[in-house]
């Protein structure tokens, strides 16, 4: 295995471990030494990959956006209706909430809640572009095919993502009465009804 590939895997494992610890102990209470210890690597070595906790925080949001973005991209590339695509996006989002809850939790509880960490270096959409671009493409395709109504981007974005984020938040608080995956059909139908032409 090439050095660069090894480094990339190492980087990813740091990110995964950090995500888990942030989820368990909270963002502010988790330190770099905590993460290094969990990975059985030296703190100095960890600093070679991420030179500060803030930088790690920003890299994590970029990483999770890329991961989510790539999954949405796969849906975007399918030759199916926008209605179908909505369902698939909702599915993958809820699946991620079930299988890797720390990722969306990080977005909701760390990224959205600690703006002071992200304002310098993650201005606006800079660090979430991997994911936002795919949502834009989904909307662009839907409107140009005539299936979705042309409207202000942020109205549609807020509706779609705010809705999904809200459901995941409630799920995290253990307030939902069913498994989150069981909400897929209803949520998809609601979103489609709101966005369709």
């Amino acid at each position, binding site marked *: 295995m090439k050095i660069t590939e090894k480094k990339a895997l190492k980087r990813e494992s740091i990110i995964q471990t950090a995500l888990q610890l942030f989820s368990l102990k909270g963002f502010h209470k988790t330190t770099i030494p905590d993460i290094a210890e969990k990975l059985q690597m030296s703190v100095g070595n960890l600093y070679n990959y991420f030179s500060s906790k803030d930088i790690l925080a920003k890299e994590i949001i970029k990483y999770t956006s890329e991961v989510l973005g790539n999954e949405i991209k796969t849906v975007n590339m399918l030759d199916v209706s926008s209605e179908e695509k909505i369902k698939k996006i909702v599915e993958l989002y809820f699946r991620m909430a079930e299988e890797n809850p720390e990722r969306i939790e990080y977005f909701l509880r760390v990224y959205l809640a600690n703006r002071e960490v992200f304002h310098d270096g993650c201005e606006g*959409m*800079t660090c979430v572009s991997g994911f936002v671009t795919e949502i834009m493409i989904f909307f662009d395709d839907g409107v140009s095919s005539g299936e979705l109504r*042309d409207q202000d981007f942020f109205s549609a974005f807020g509706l779609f993502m705010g809705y999904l984020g809200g459901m995941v938040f409630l799920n995290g608080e253990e307030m939902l009465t069913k498994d989150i995956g069981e909400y897929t059909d209803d949520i998809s139908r609601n979103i489609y009804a709101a966005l369709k032409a």
Partner: protein
Amino acid sequence: MTSQTSYKPKLLWLQSITCNGNTHSFLNHPDLASILSHFELVYHPVLETPFDIEEMARGELECDILILEGSFREEGFTRGRVEVSKILEAYAKKAKHIISAGTCATFGGIFKEYDPENISGFCFNVEERTERYEMYASKLISLPGCPIHPKWLSYVLLMMLKDKHIPIDELHRPQELYGITVHTGCARNEYFEWKIDTKGFGLKEGCLFYEQGCQGPYTRGSCNKILWNDTSSKTIVGTPCFGCTEPSFPKTALFSTKTNMGIPATMPLGVPRRAYLTATGIAKSFKIKRLEERIITYDS
């Protein structure tokens, strides 16, 4: 050194269904005298020539370079009392070079819209090749534009005069002129780079691509490199580019940008959508103060 002893190619300017815009644009060339000194003008719709329109229409004049202006129909349009399609046949065969001057002559343009079934460009009907393409493609140079810039035509004529090969694209447009976009060299480029829309008309600040319908980023042409009237261009004076060199000219709703949820429906030429959206998303995340402000303040 003049070309008194060297051969002067015979130029014939044939008009079909046109507004005469290309003729008048060319007559505006700042070096008209010296350009024309290299050629023998056999027939021209405005300038004095040895032959009148009826003599020209018989199809018997000599012709080295045929310049076509206007869109075509097989029958139902005459010049000098002869169907243009007949005159065309005669001269297109004789000519060493054929130039379709203007979007109408090249693709069909505005006048095609009156009778789309029967009116087209010379060798192209929008982007499809017509029957004439097979016969004349080897001699053809396409100069779309509504109208053409006089220097595009003089470039082609002088290259033909000197027997130089003109690199062309698949629609026979010279790459030196149409290989770039109208966006190249636009005075508002910085605003495009940072996605700052101009918010209405009448301001030198701001880009016209996001909302005002500017087609510059995906229109092939050199209007911001070879300036109009040696001085200016549409986008310099705050008018959006209408894509007049393209086969699709004219599109509709020319003063507003077609968007899908705020995303431009047409991307800059050759730029993949994901690349554009990613770059745009990042650029939009930053506020560049200097570019948000007006450049000049005049005391009242």
